């Protein structure tokens, strides 16, 4: 699919030419999607409003650089996820310290998730699992992180991803595999108990 000929492309060109009504149309078309992405990641309605405003402000100021290689939604999705991670880095909400090692509790979870262990305890703390997912994803390059999110969280198929990003299906598969491996290795590395928490 050519992203330069869709009605969406027409809308983008109008915004690039300074048409404010077209920008409003973009905001209204994608605001719900952007809110859902942010809420999925942060689970906070208050922060969602602030970040969504920032997302569309970024869209406004950088749309002149939009090159039609991906769909507009894919581009907005990337900006949104980036803003969420920016927010997490700045606020370190719920004590998510990305540069730090994992907590003992998280190490336990990761060890429990190691392959070959049939008796993995059920992890019912959804919030903690979400934090863990975010923490692991923070260790991936943005492109791989966004692809994994589009596949696993947004539920897009490989064909859809190829169409959305303008990257061919095989390359998408290779990138996804690499991302999954990195995520797995990051989990393994960080799950290894540090000397202070080895006992027990």
């Amino acid at each position, binding site marked *: 699919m050519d992203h330069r000929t869709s009605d969406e492309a027409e809308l983008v060109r109008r915004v690039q030419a300074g048409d404010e009504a077209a920008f409003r149309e973009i905001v209204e078309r994608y605001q719900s999607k952007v809110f859902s992405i942010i809420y*999925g990641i942060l689970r906070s309605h208050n922060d969602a409003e602030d970040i969504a*405003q920032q997302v569309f402000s970024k869209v406004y100021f950088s749309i002149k650089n939009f090159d039609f290689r991906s769909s507009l939604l894919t581009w907005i999705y990337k900006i949104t996820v980036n803003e969420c991670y920016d927010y997490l880095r700045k606020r370190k909400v719920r004590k998510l310290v990305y540069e730090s090692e994992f907590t003992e509790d998280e190490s336990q979870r990761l060890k429990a998730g190691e*392959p070959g262990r049939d008796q993995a305890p059920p992890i019912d703390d959804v919030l903690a699992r979400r934090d863990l997912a975010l923490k692991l994803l923070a260790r991936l390059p943005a492109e791989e992180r966004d692809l994994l999110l589009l596949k696993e969280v947004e539920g897009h198929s490989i064909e859809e991803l190829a169409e959305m990003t303008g990257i061919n299906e095989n390359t998408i598969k290779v990138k996804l595999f690499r991302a999954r491996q990195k995520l797995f290795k990051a989990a393994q590395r960080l799950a290894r108990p540090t000397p202070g928490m080895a006992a027990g």
Partner: protein
Amino acid sequence: MHELIRERLEELLSGAPQPESGLEQHLVTCTECRDELAAFRQQSALLKTLRCAEALSPAPGFYARVWERIQLQRSASVWNALLDPGFAWRLALGSLAALLLMGAFVAMNEKAPPAPAVTAIVVDEQPQELGLDPERDRDAVLVTLATYRE
């Protein structure tokens, strides 16, 4: 992970309803692939916790708030540019250069003999000198424009 499984990994993780018998057979016999696939399945489940099940929409007036923010950021960026020390330095240098150029121009014009500055423009069959009578000059230009058809 072996090629056979890696190539079909995304399908397997998406819960392909019936993995082909070849794949199934390999997974039964190859511990490495089986374990890695199990780990990737757990990872996939972990990532799915970031899904947002609800359809959300912003509070009314969202666009107006976005637009307000854009205006604020726009004026802030103008001020930032003006207050940027690098910009101030470039502005000072630029002004100095402009002053020097103007000075040099004035000095040269004072020394030079009165130059026929407009003769270069007079290229057609109008021998009269332009620049002496504005009224006549305008007529000359209008005539030129009006006759310029071919």
